[in-house]
């Protein structure tokens, strides 16, 4: 167990370091003088001087990276020039909102995608299979920001059932919070549901063809028992692993969804920062996203490990 984890972490750490280098290097893409560009809308010489100092812009690039990375490790993601706040505080403030949205979306994706995948695998080649595949293709092809707009058009503008925007923290009113979050979560979960359906279907098809499923049937296990006791457990391994990879997709999608429904999360923070030329905040959001993603994959590996007895014992 420990050596397995150690190996995974040994891969995750250099990945994270390289990712941080890439994110740091983004600064170099800025046209003209970095300090002036970083200052964004402000053209105040004092601010520019502060930035030059803060990012050690007079030092060579590798040194700057190391100083920056050291700061990041200590939780210093830089200053938002625009909002006059440390980026880490902004992220800490917005992250829970996005996480709630992402988790709701993942639940929706699993609740829709996994049963649909199971049914279409078990009923392979039937109408149910074709319908499920059609829905999945629809889910993959529909741009989620457009789906969001259409849902606002229908549920908010036309029916008037749900608010088009207006986030309410769950601490204030859980009902209002869910009312505001259900549409964004559905929009976000929609595409992932399609992917989960495809993964589940593929995994189930493979398991259904396996010899041990035939053994189970030869024992007299009922069809439902075969699916629940014998198939799902084995199909869960690829579903979990691939599902974790979809979390990146979820974070990408959150940027747009939050924009459409004005949910004050991570993605909105990033887009607003992009327009305010608040580059430190953009970098901060990206590095947090990458870290979250890598950690989630590490967790998926652990989960994979836990449901796979072959790895657990040896």
């Amino acid at each position: 167990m420990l050596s397995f984890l150690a190996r995974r972490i040994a891969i995750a750490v250099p990945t994270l370091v390289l990712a941080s280098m890439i994110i740091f290097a983004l600064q170099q893409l800025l046209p003209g003088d970095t300090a002036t560009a970083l200052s964004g809308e402000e053209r105040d010489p004092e601010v520019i001087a502060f930035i030059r100092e803060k990012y050690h812009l007079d030092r060579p690039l590798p040194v700057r990276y190391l100083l920056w990375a050291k700061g990041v490790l200590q939780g210093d993601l830089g200053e938002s020039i625009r909002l006059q706040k440390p980026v880490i505080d902004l992220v800490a403030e917005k992250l829970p909102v996005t996480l709630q949205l992402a988790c709701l979306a993942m639940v929706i994706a699993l609740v829709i995608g996994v049963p649909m995948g199971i049914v279409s695998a078990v009923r392979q080649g039937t109408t149910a299979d074709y319908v499920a595949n059609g829905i999945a293709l629809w889910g993959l092809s529909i741009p989620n920001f457009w789906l969001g707009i259409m849902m606002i058009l229908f549920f908010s503008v036309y029916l008037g059932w749900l608010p088009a925007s207006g986030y309410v923290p769950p601490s204030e009113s859980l009902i209002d919070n869910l009312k505001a979050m259900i549409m964004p979560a559905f929009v976000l979960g929609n595409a992932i549901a399609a992917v989960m359906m495809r993964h589940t279907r593929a995994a189930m098809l493979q398991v259904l063809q396996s010899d041990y499923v035939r053994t189970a049937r030869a024992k007299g296990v009922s069809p439902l028992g075969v699916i629940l006791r014998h198939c799902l457990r084995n199909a869960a391994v690829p579903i979990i692993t691939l599902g974790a990879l979809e979390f990146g997709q979820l974070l990408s999608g959150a940027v747009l969804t939050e924009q459409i429904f004005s949910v004050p999360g991570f993605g909105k923070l990033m887009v607003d920062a992009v327009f305010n030329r608040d580059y430190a905040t953009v970098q901060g959001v990206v590095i947090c996203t990458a870290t979250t993603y890598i950690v989630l994959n590490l967790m998926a590996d652990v989960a994979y490990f836990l449901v796979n007895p072959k790895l657990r014992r040896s």
Partner: protein
Amino acid sequence: MSAPGTTKLLEVRDLAVAFETRGGMIHAVNGVSYALETGETLGIVGESGSGKSVHVLAMLGLIPKPPGRIARGEVVFQGRDLLALPDKALRKVRGGEIGFVFQDPMSSLNPAMTVAAQIVEPLRIHLGLAGAAARRRARELLDLVRIPDAGSRLDQYPHEFSGGQRQRVMIAIAIACKPKLLIADEATTALDVTIQAEIIALVRELKREIGMAIIWITHDLGVVAGIADTVQVMYAGRILERGPVDDIFSDPRSAYTLGLLRSLPDLGVRDVRRLRLQPIEGTPPDMRLPPAGDPFAPRNRYATPRCFLEAPPLSQAPGAAPGHLVAAWYDLPGQLARERPTP
């Protein structure tokens, strides 16, 4: 070996199975009929694609439908037609009255379930055993199939067992409910020769203890010699020859059986041993277009023109032991006698 009983346990009548594929309909089993007595051990021999495995899977509803389809026939087991049984009743037969052992012990056990859980499953379904009682019985079964230190191995996973041991576990599962019939489908093919012999010895012992009938499916005539009372040779979805094991080996009447015997290196059958060891020339027919005549005719040097036109019925071989049936228009012993130079 226990003497075969006298009552019919299983009667297969004109069973035909087909598979619908993109390339056309594959006629895998084409009118197979035979009977199995209580306590009898029947060895079914044939190459892959002969329909030997498909027909037993089909009779228990274990082929995927679609693409599989039972075209016609009846399978009467203890007075009931299995093919006409509703799903639920058929499930009671599977694993309860008929136990099944498959070829590959590596993949036939569920990798994510403990051995105990997999042995307990049929006990729960068919005997209603649960909890400590089921566990006790599972342990007894592991003892019965000679797995040392059974108690501590119950909670292990299949990958912690060797190939031979896994096949023992499979056998434990198959006999868990003391079935009337055990079907072993290439049960020793994937195993080393020494382990093969151990497994066969174990099954013989279990048969004595439980008194079940056995259908032993294999492509290896040598294995059949060690276990079967009766041998049945299948080719292209049909039975070409069937008879008591000794007669089949000493007095084969089908050219295909002869070919199989000739491809065996060391067998204590003097008559055919003198002949040169040789493979059977040619390939089996395309099962999308099953031949009208004897399916083996194109590969048979003794084939007569009639063999290509009309399928021979399975009937008593003239001059052979009673119950020795063959489907052939040609006269194999006569042909062989003519070929052999008189001393």
